């Protein structure tokens, strides 16, 4: 091999997000959405309404959270899920209520979908004692364990083996529950995923490992941080796999229900890539120079909430007026949540020492 000049040596690939051959090179390519109607999927009008309300709640919760963050109402990191709501919603509606969900730090949508109220969620962001994690976790660590939402986790890939463990316990107890684990495309590059995939397949763990591929590992496009197609990782582990259009809640619902049934029946893991898109930056401090405005706009044109709304109206499930009623109700719920969070107390000083150990009078080294 001929030697290159030092300046010509390259490691990480470059160029995604640029206009090439007249088109934007996207972080992800969406597979086609399902063509089935809600009735074909077994979704009642009430379910559809609940889905829409849930997605709109997640969206408005985060838009208001962003405002409050910018107003300086709370600190820390704030990773927004906006754009990805079809993934959480489609999944939660597809699973049984006692199936486990565990996710990474982009967790607000998941929490809201699994029973964290807007009040509890907003209060957690504010670091208040009334928050879902009593102000001890913050944005990245929402949890509602009695609803089988095991929480958001801040170490990329760190919660993937834990999901394997949740599934391990379910198999051990033969309780018919399955576990699902959501993580970003960035986590695909972590060894923890690969160790878990190997053991999950070897031990036939009832777990669904799901990449929410939103195209970017922080500021690095998927095609710049990981080789080949993500879903193909499954092949190396002889694992069942699927790619799902994550901008369409029906597609997520349909496929996740099918997969969940298979896992429950056969106690075998799946590796699933749900392709989606986040509209906001990685966190609030992200100038987003790694992607084009056009790409963002292209995705906003196929916004999952707008898409469901259009469907609902076209199929006359709800009228414009009824949709507006839902929107107004959600809007009020969020405004109330902001007020609730604002008016709630911070944890008491003695709570600093609580929740470390199980016993009532634990030992702390001084």
């Amino acid at each position, binding site marked *: 091999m001929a030697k290159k000049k030092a300046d010509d040596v390259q490691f990480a690939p470059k160029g995604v997000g640029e206009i090439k051959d007249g088109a934007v090179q996207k972080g992800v390519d969406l597979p086609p959405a399902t063509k089935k109607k809600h009735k074909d999927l077994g979704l009642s009008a009430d379910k559809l309404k609940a889905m829409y309300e849930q997605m709109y709640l997640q969206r408005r919760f985060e838009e208001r959270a962003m405002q409050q963050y910018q107003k300086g109402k709370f600190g820390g990191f704030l990773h927004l899920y906006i754009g990805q709501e079809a993934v959480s919603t489609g999944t939660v509606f597809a699973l049984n209520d006692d199936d486990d969900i565990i996710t990474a730090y982009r967790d607000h949508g998941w929490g809201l979908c699994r029973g964290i109220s807007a009040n509890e969620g907003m209060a957690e962001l504010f670091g208040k004692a009334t928050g879902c994690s009593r102000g001890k976790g913050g944005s990245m660590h929402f949890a*509602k364990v009695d609803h089988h939402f095991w929480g958001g986790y801040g170490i990329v890939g760190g919660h993937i083996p*834990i999901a394997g463990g949740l599934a391990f316990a379910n198999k051990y107890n033969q309780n018919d529950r399955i576990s699902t684990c959501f993580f970003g495309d960035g986590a695909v590059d972590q060894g923890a995923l690969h160790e878990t995939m190997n053991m999950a397949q070897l031990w036939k763990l009832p777990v669904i490992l799901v990449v929410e591929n939103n195209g970017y590992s922080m500021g690095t496009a998927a095609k710049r941080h990981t080789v080949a197609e993500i879903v193909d990782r499954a092949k190396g582990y002889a694992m069942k796999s699927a790619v799902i259009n994550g901008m369409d809640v029906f597609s997520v619902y349909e496929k996740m229900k099918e997969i969940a049934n298979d896992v429950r029946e056969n106690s075998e893991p799946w590796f699933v890539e749900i392709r989606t898109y986040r509209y906001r930056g990685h966190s609030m401090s992200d100038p987003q120079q790694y992607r084009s405005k056009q790409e963002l706009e292209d995705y906003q044109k196929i916004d999952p909430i707008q898409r469901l709304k259009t469907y609902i109206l076209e199929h006359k499930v709800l009228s414009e007026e009824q949709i507006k009623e839902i929107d107004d109700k959600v809007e009020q719920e969020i405004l109330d949540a902001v007020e609730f969070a604002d008016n709630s107390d911070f944890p008491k000083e003695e709570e600093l020492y609580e929740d470390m150990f199980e016993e009532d009078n634990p*030992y702390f080294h001084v």
Partner: protein
Amino acid sequence: MAELQFREAIKHAIDEEMGRDERVFVMGEEVAEYNGAYKVTEGLLDKYGYRRVIDTPISELGFAGIGVGAAMNGLRPIIEFMTFNFAVLATDQIINHATKVKYMTGGQISCPIVFRGPNASAGQLGATHSVSYDSMYAHFPGLKVIYVSEPDDAKGLMKSAIRDDNPVIFMESEQMYGMKGEVSDEEDYIIPIGKGKIKREGDDVTLVAHGKMYHVAVQAAKQLAKDGIECEIIDPRTVKPLDLPLIIESIKKTNRCVVVDEAHPFGGLASEIGFLIQREAFDYLDAPVQRVCLPDVNAPFAKNLFDIWFPSPKQVIDAVNQVTYRN
């Protein structure tokens, strides 16, 4: 009392607890069909079957995390590391997850799990197989850390570790597995976590030594006794919570202390105990506290270098001579 090997004492504790609680299971490399790399889990597969004794791939991060998740979801895993030198790969799960899930979810999650295996060096195994990690784990809030020196302690403390509702690190030693000792045959023999033991009484100097170093301290004490120096040996057994009152009481009697610790010197148990003694018993000290540790150097392979590297009774005797102003 029954005479048991160290490995048998641990196994008996695990066996009893598995018999008592169906949620307890064992997972690790070679624990099942191979019967344990050091035979600690010998026979458990036959007795409890494949559901509760599980061979893992060499994936410390992965199986430690599966253990954490299983503990969160209601089971009580005992995770065996072939050595804590390999557990370094699993520290994300131990440090970032096991110790933190309860706190950061505001108390919603419990994580009753035991991580166990041999700690520190075991002869000429080279630099990557010879590190003592007890002080490192003790640094982190949320962990209880046990490093035992004798079979009796191993039995009683292992049972406590398995019953504890928090993450516990339980450390052993490859070189001690074959060591025999009297073990209480009391039914359901429990030693509480956090309680040290005066294993030799003496008035002249306090030696604090745990794990393999306890035996080094015993050899030094025997030698010193011939010269009329009586050492009091305290084995803390649990590194964290540390039984400080036991140590301080002894210092008040002997007024001198040497800590023998198979860790590197910076920020280890020896330095922590030294600090605590000056804070709690400053007026009782007749000499500065001394320590015998590993040097701030990786473990060498060559036998002659290893022998210099590893703390010896001679170094303990020298340190005692120093605190008693006999040299």
